[in-house]
């Protein structure tokens, strides 16, 4: 196998592996929205006041998934 093909193969496999990290962020975002929904159904009056907390938690969790996506893009286009 010539070095260029091996490098390309490594880049593509590495980008694929990096995307596994997004699964964890998916679980985290699901937990946040699921718990918000169950809390909102128990006490609908308090739900609206917690909306910006929900978005804050969603944003902080989602950032970790975006980090793994950025690693995948770096491997694909910048290495």
């Amino acid at each position, binding site marked *: 196998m010539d070095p260029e093909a091996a490098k390309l193969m490594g880049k593509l496999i590495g980008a694929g592996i990096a995307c596994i990290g997004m699964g964890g962020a998916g679980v985290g975002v699901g937990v946040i929205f699921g718990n918000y929904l169950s809390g909102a159904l128990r006490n609908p009056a308090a739900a609206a006041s917690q909306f910006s907390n929900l978005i804050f938690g969603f*944003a902080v969790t989602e950032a970790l998934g975006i980090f793994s996506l950025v690693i995948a893009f770096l491997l694909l286009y910048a290495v």
Partner: protein
Amino acid sequence: MAEQPIEPIHQFRINNLFDIGTFGGNGTPGSGTHLAFTNSALFMVLTVGLIMAFLILGSSRRAIVPTRMQLMTEMSYEFIANMVRNTAGTEGMKFFPMVFSLFMFILVANLFGMFPYFFTVTSHIIVTAMMALLVFFTVIIYGVYKNGLRFLKLFVPSGIPWPVLIAVVPIEIISFLSRPLSHSLRLFGNILAGHIVLKVFGGMVVALLGAGAWGIIAIAPFGMAVALTGLEFLVAALQAFVFAVLTCVYLHDAIHPGH
């Protein structure tokens, strides 16, 4: 990848529309600062122009019974003002112009990017990193100006025994320093990923249409591209709101550093 005919990152290329000139340097090619008016700059100017037109037209005739235009302007104002009051507190209202400007700029730039063949300003990390660093240094400078050395209480959560603090304080410092990184990458990553996914599904439609009788299954990625366009409009508005909320949360830390 570069070998494929339909390149999903082609849409993010920056082109010089007209050159302004080279400043500094010692005359050899490649030295000095080369300034040019790019398509990115053009869309930033268009974004700011649209926001100014929206706000000036909406608030020029301040009627008791508002027109639709005035109603939209007042709604966008009230929406952000309530968010700042709830998240950063009443003292945070002195930062309302900054938060409102950031929100409107990101929102309009994101929505501009949804037009075909338009350039998305926020899909470049240099733009989002500048906005995130602006917020970061505003927090540090205002926090030190207002609280002095008590600003460092931000890194020391109260009510924790001192052996735990040895572990917690470095974590708090690292999490504070990584804020501009995550703040900018979140917006950049969401917009970049969304636009690449749209282009990938568009490329699938073109590739399948060239497959003869099997081209009928091109309807599946086409439907997906339509659905994803709807999702991207949601993401465009949501990410602008998220950027504004996080700005307010960070400003809250600058105003009230104790936990």
